[in-house]
């Protein structure tokens, strides 16, 4: 069930201003003074730069911040007073996020609620309304369509905007989105058939264009990884890898974290959760010094296996939405597009399917 509407650029600016007036934080892609695209809180819609440069890092930092306080403590004699971080968050509207970033949130929801509910993640999710925007694509490292997503996917979003002359076609795609339309209907016009048709053709064109970049069978890739833990393929990737966390940091689906204490004074401190990466040597090392994933061959295999075998086998979705940030960020040009192509080819040969 979805509902279309149209909003002019002027009305959107007014809507944003009114939302901010009523205490909603608005997050949008912006271009910094240095010329870098990134997701940031804005004060005015004019700061937003939709579809201009791929924001780095992904949207994930607004839901799983690079560092966040889990709790603070104060020691009083032999006693400890704990103050857990609040799981209530002020309302926020994410406006014009790339569909790969938005879909990633829904993918990560699964692990964040795997029997135990991550209240901080869920708190931010519940406080957020997310308007994705049909993506124009970035370059030939985009491969959302190869991993089950699309440049116009509304999965995980409450609405999908498509930029058209004079404004945006907006399709409300969730109950929260429809409630938003109900509450803020005065800003929206009825969508004309022409607008819907124009958006459809734009969306189809972008999908077709991104499909050129990569076509693979992710289920087959998962099966191959499952059966080839010790394959000679992995040591062809490990030596190139520097073992940094650039890929994981910019990735919208990488969610691994560390928990560290910080003393802020005598008997006071903060426990934080910080982004971490499976590519770091320290990630898995035991207190004894033993490291189950002792070199980059094993660590890089873990990255690929987690995304395309482990996660889908547990939660259904591949842990990748095809944004290509890891490809662009890797200082050593490790190339996930090529890696998926290679594994898919190996799997095709083995399973006797079409390459």
């Amino acid at each position, binding site marked *: 069930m979805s509902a279309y509407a149209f909003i002019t650029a002027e009305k959107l600016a007014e809507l944003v201003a009114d939302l901010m007036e009523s205490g909603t934080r608005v997050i949008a892609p912006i271009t910094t003074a240095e010329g870098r695209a990134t997701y940031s809180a804005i004060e005015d819609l004019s700061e937003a730069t939709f579809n201009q440069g791929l924001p780095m890092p992904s949207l994930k930092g607004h839901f799983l911040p690079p560092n966040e306080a889990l709790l603070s403590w104060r020691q009083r004699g032999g006693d400890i007073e704990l103050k857990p971080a609040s799981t209530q968050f002020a309302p926020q509207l994410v406006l014009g996020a790339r569909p790969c970033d938005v879909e990633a949130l829904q993918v990560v929801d699964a692990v964040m609620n795997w029997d135990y509910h991550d209240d901080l993640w869920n708190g931010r999710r519940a406080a957020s309304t997310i308007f994705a925007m049909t993506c124009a694509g970035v370059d030939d490292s985009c491969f959302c369509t190869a991993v089950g997503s699309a440049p116009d996917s509304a999965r995980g979003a409450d609405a999908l905007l498509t930029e058209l002359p004079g404004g945006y076609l907006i399709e409300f795609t969730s109950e929260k989105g429809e409630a938003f339309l109900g509450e803020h209907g005065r800003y929206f016009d009825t969508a004309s058939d022409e607008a819907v048709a124009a958006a459809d053709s734009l969306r189809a064109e972008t999908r077709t264009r991104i499909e050129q970049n990569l076509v693979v069978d992710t289920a087959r890739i998962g099966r191959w990884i499952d059966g080839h833990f010790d394959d000679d393929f992995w040591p062809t990737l490990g030596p190139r890898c520097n073992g940094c966390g650039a890929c994981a940091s910019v990735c919208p689906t990488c969610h691994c974290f560390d928990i560290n204490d910080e003393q802020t004074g005598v008997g006071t401190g903060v426990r934080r959760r910080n982004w971490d990466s499976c590519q770091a040597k320290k990630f898995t090392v035991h207190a004894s010094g033993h490291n189950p994933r002792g070199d980059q061959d094993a660590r890089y295999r873990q990255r690929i296996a987690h995304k395309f075998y482990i996660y889908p086998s547990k939660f259904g979705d591949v842990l990748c939405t095809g944004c290509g940030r890891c490809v662009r960020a890797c*200082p050593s040009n490790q190339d996930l597009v090529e890696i998926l192509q290679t594994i898919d080819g190996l799997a095709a040969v083995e399973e006797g399917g079409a390459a």
Partner: protein
Amino acid sequence: MTELQDLARKLLEDGTVAVVIGWEEGRRGPRPVSITEPDDTERLVFNARCVHNLATYLDPRRSQVRKLGKPAIVVKGCDTKAVAGLLREAQFKREDVVLIGMHCGGVVTDPAEQTEVTAETVAPRCAGCDVREPHRTDYVLGEARVEPPQNTSIDERVAALDAMTADERFEYWATQMEKCVRCYACRQACPLCVCDVCVADKTVPQWIERAPHARGNMSWHLVRAMHLAGRCVGCGECERACPMDIPLTLLNRKMQQVVAESFEYHVSDDPEVVSPIGAFRDDDHEDFIL
């Protein structure tokens, strides 16, 4: 190019080395490759887009590389300064590696987008390049190239920072440090960041806060800059690797200038030249000690 490929093939075939570390073409420009089969040497390339400092693969702690066997490595002149740095610090012996030097005419800033070295595209690191030709390699291949156009942007940016008040400068760096997410791409790409346990990973005692907030990030990057003073070869790999575009080379360049002024020392491609951090002299300046 066949010259490089032929040499690599010969070195692998006659068993001189077990792996040749060089560049192959990738979708987004040349990328590091470890060639172990003679027939794969055809993949080797060298051109103005070969930006990586491959000396970083010589860190003996990279067990996934070391287990391939004795390496030959393709280096530009500037990269040999990093090799010399590792030799100076006894990370391995000179005879443990075969160095294939390439004549270099400079490299581009962004190999994914640029192909030719021009005044606009030349990498900042080529500014004031003092070791354009490899001197202490086992081979020197290719044709001598013309000197690349000068790019003085780094020194101009350092000068601009120097011209700021201390408060303004602090504000500038505080803003930059807020961006850091502690992925350690800078450290991992750095050919001289080879500590067994990096100070950032030490927990007993814990010197540097692990959290990527401005305070923890500032202490990380300043400690790293200090530890690279007199050791940094100015290859700029840290800044190139940074996914958050933090201008890390400005810190290292400033330290280079300080070391040059205080100790008349410029990082050398000769491993026999001792660095100020590795040697004590009676007449060392002490005025930098607080």
